[in-house]
């Protein structure tokens, strides 16, 4: 998978990597059993400290999203349910609250906001479906 670092987001670099893996796993861009790039080439490519990449990977491992196979690399786990339900909810609530504050500030009414969420959800499902089909065709 490809990563994109921004020094303007205010989010720690390792957390940006963590969040991008989570997003890739959620959208199907990264599938169970697929490998993350090795630490050294990824650090070189992004020109970030090796320790930053290592920290991101160990965080992902702690969250139960990936597993490290010694000598082979880091792989996306098959059961993404490894995150406990309340932990998952907590992660999501922060993001939702941010979006709600933003919606309030942009004066998007409740109804429109709910419709928008529905629409985005469908778009994501569509993306997952396409990704799955590509996978089946490959197989």
């Amino acid at each position: 998978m490809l990563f994109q670092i921004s020094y303007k987001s205010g989010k720690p670099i390792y957390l940006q990597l963590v969040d991008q893996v989570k997003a890739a796993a959620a959208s199907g861009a990264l599938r169970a059993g697929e490998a993350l790039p090795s630490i050294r080439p990824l650090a070189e490519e992004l020109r970030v400290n090796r320790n930053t990449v290592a920290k991101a990977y160990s965080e992902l491992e702690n969250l139960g999203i990936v597993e490290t196979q010694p000598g082979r690399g880091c792989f996306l786990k098959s059961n993404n349910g490894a995150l406990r339900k309340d932990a998952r909810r907590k992660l999501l609530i922060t993001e939702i609250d941010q979006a709600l504050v933003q919606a309030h500030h942009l004066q998007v009414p409740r109804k429109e906001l709910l419709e928008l969420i529905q629409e985005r959800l469908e778009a994501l499902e569509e993306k997952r479906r396409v990704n799955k089909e590509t996978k089946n065709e490959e197989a």
Partner: protein
Amino acid sequence: MNESTPAIQMENLCYSYGRAEAVNNFNLTVRPGRCYGLFGRNGAGKTTTMKCLLNLLRPKRGNVRVFGIDPAKQDVAAKKRLSYVPDQVAFYPWMTIRETFDYLASFRENWNQKTEKELLDRFRLDASQRTDALSKGQRTQVALIAAVCPETELLVLDEPTSGLDPIVRREFIETVIGAYQEGHPGSRTIFVSTHLISEFEGLIDEFTIMDAGRAVLTLESDHARERYQKIRARFSEPPPKLALEGALHVQTSGRELEIIANGAARSIEDHLRAQNPESLSTESLTLEEIFVATLKS
């Protein structure tokens, strides 16, 4: 030597050239395994600080320690632990690259020949070439290989990429990340002085901004980017004068407002939001922008 001994420690370091003070009560601590940036304008005192660290200059006052060792008293013991890429690279002009490496390796307890070969290939250098025939970029590459191969715990880089072309600069940084950090990332410490801050942005864990011989700001990079934010707001009419606490810099242009916040971005945003802006956006400053904002304010 325990884990907590800093790789570099400077306490109240002072140095002057005649009556001109170059470094004035300068303090800095670099923990092992970190990549530490020393930022400053030309003439801020970076190179003088580096030279005190390397025992090329004797501090007039204050202490310098490298892994707890005073380089002025135990020069060899301190030098064993570090390698150095200077801003002006010089080799014996009559030696080839091969002879230069053999010569330098003779002073070292360890020299990784595999890394040497890999990096010569990567930089497309011919080891049989005399060093006086090398370009500036190639000379820096040779110096970098010579600094990486001894696999020391501390790598000191003084303005390493200034004057080099973008490709060489990129390869230089990739090599520091890849080849140098490869062995024991946890115990490989990097101390780099530069004013090309954006190139090293991703590498640097912590930094000190130096001005007129003094440390003006020391922060962790992630924390710095969280703390320094640029807030932009646009209003339907030219905004009233707002008393914004924690604003480092405020600029108004017609109906638009740009604020550099230092740690108070949230409360400033709330303040602005109360004025019903047409748009409001916030982004972090990069380390280079923080550098400029700090030295201009």
